[in-house]
């Protein structure tokens, strides 16, 4: 359990995505950021594995770099 799972794990990924959208709906950007900060901490603890957390951070950053490159 020390590598990040990137294959889809939700039985219904659309519902999971919808849950995140609903959680943020109607919030200001500032409140959304506050909510996300709490979510990240809760989920990171649930993962409870430093290597997986690092992998997740790396994947997120990598995808940002790819997005930036695509928009230039």
């Amino acid at each position, binding site marked *: 359990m020390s590598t990040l799972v990137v294959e889809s794990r939700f039985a219904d990924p659309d519902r999971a995505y919808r849950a995140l959208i609903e959680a943020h709906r109607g919030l200001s950007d500032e409140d959304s*950021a*506050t909510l996300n900060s*709490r979510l990240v901490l809760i989920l990171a*603890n649930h993962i409870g594995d430093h290597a997986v957390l690092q992998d997740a951070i790396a994947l997120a950053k990598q995808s940002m770099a790819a997005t930036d490159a695509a928009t230039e």
Partner: protein
Amino acid sequence: MNTRKALYQYGYRRCADQGRSSPARHPVAVVGAGPVGLCTAIDLAQRGVPVVLLDDADRIGEGSRGICYAKRTLEILDRLGVADPCLEKGVTWRIGKVFQNDDLLYAFDLLPEDGHKMPAFINLQQYYLEHALVERAAALPNLEIRWRNKVIDLKRRNDGATLTVETPEGPYDLDAEWVVAADGARSALRGMLGLAFQGEVFEDRFLIADVKMKGEFPPERWFWFDPPFHDGHSALLHKQPDDVWRIDLQLGPDADAKAEQTPERVVPRLRQMLGHDDFSLEWVSVYTFQCRRLERFVHGRVVFAGDSAHQVSPFGARGANSGIQDAENLAWKLALILKGEAPESLIESYDLERSAAADENIGHSTRSTDFIAPRSAQELRFRDATLSLARHAPFAKRMVNSGRLSMPSTYETPLSTPDRETWSGSARLGAPVPDAPMRDRSGRSVWLLEALGGEETILHVPNGSQPPAGSRVLILGEDLIDEHGFFTQRFDTSPGSTYLVRPDQHLAARWRHATPPLIESASRRLRGIEGDHA
């Protein structure tokens, strides 16, 4: 504002080295009579090595510096003969409380178990510690403190260094086989060797105030995030002896250091915090801090210890504590090298062990600073999210970081002989052995660490066969009686268990059943004579 006068004044005295045609030669010159230099010098002198201790000042008592001394430091000070006056004068504490706004987030107890001679922590103004150390140093005939002796030049040689020392009567030279640079964060010796001192600089400014008052607060460490009396910032309150309280207030990166130190600014802030103005100011300063270190602590025959080698933020009380642990790591090794009982390469293990300790301390202190003084809106969001979650979920409580208080390092070192068996208990290979209350042969109470002292020691639990031989062997049940079972539990003993303890009381090796060749080999290894040397 900083009106505190020097509490202890020492005089310059001409020494025999001055006015000689050729420099006098000394085994060790220690530069800097702060806690680290004094501990190094005392430890060396106790080990029979003559020491000259040079300091550019002639007094102690100014400034507001270290106040917290941790259990391991107190154990070292006890071996150096100065723990008693420190404990007598100091404020003993073990409870810390962390607040957000008005609410208690959590409390912690630093020493939840019995059977240790030393408390978790004492608070004591640094000048009282230094005074106790100077008194102890004065009682050692082979230790000479030279006040107002300022090192102004250092020439390295293969077999030592020549120091040029400025005095009120002019300069003189002295040769030392080894030089210990314990001359503080602004180390002049570091500059003389042209060594880089690199790391992270923190922008946030903090106000430190030592306040004299009759307080209603208990002797505990109280830390606030975002307190009602100091909006948006952090605050720390900690008791010192003489009705003095250390107050530490985060001011933010844009604070005006000069203006913030004026009574017009300071007094209203403190009045708001304390709810009254029945106090007087002992000391006020505004500081920023840095976490940085030398890449190497050993440069030929010049060895850096304490703040000259590494600097941390004050959160966690890791400055003076780690410096004193440097001193104890260094002293026994230098003593063995100078007596020809260990190869010169043993000094490399000082660099290795204390570098790792410095990295550990810098890591803790940097992470505490990240939490206490967030540097962006998102860092602040994470911090505040953690504080809010701490009220609802245990995991977040553990993330709340108001300073992780100094603990001794466990050395992963070539001086240790790797365990072959499994062990439980709190004794860990490479760590200082846990203390335990014992009785000696005559039935008198003695603490394990007192019995160990500063010598390499074999502890053996008898099993009917021949006990081990070695320079110093203590047999459990004969030399030391484990009346309350603390030793048995902490060392996970069984009949035949044998432990080899280093001169700095760290555990070097242990066996369920030791043979003479195993013990001999481990003993040579801890002196750097064999084994895989870095």
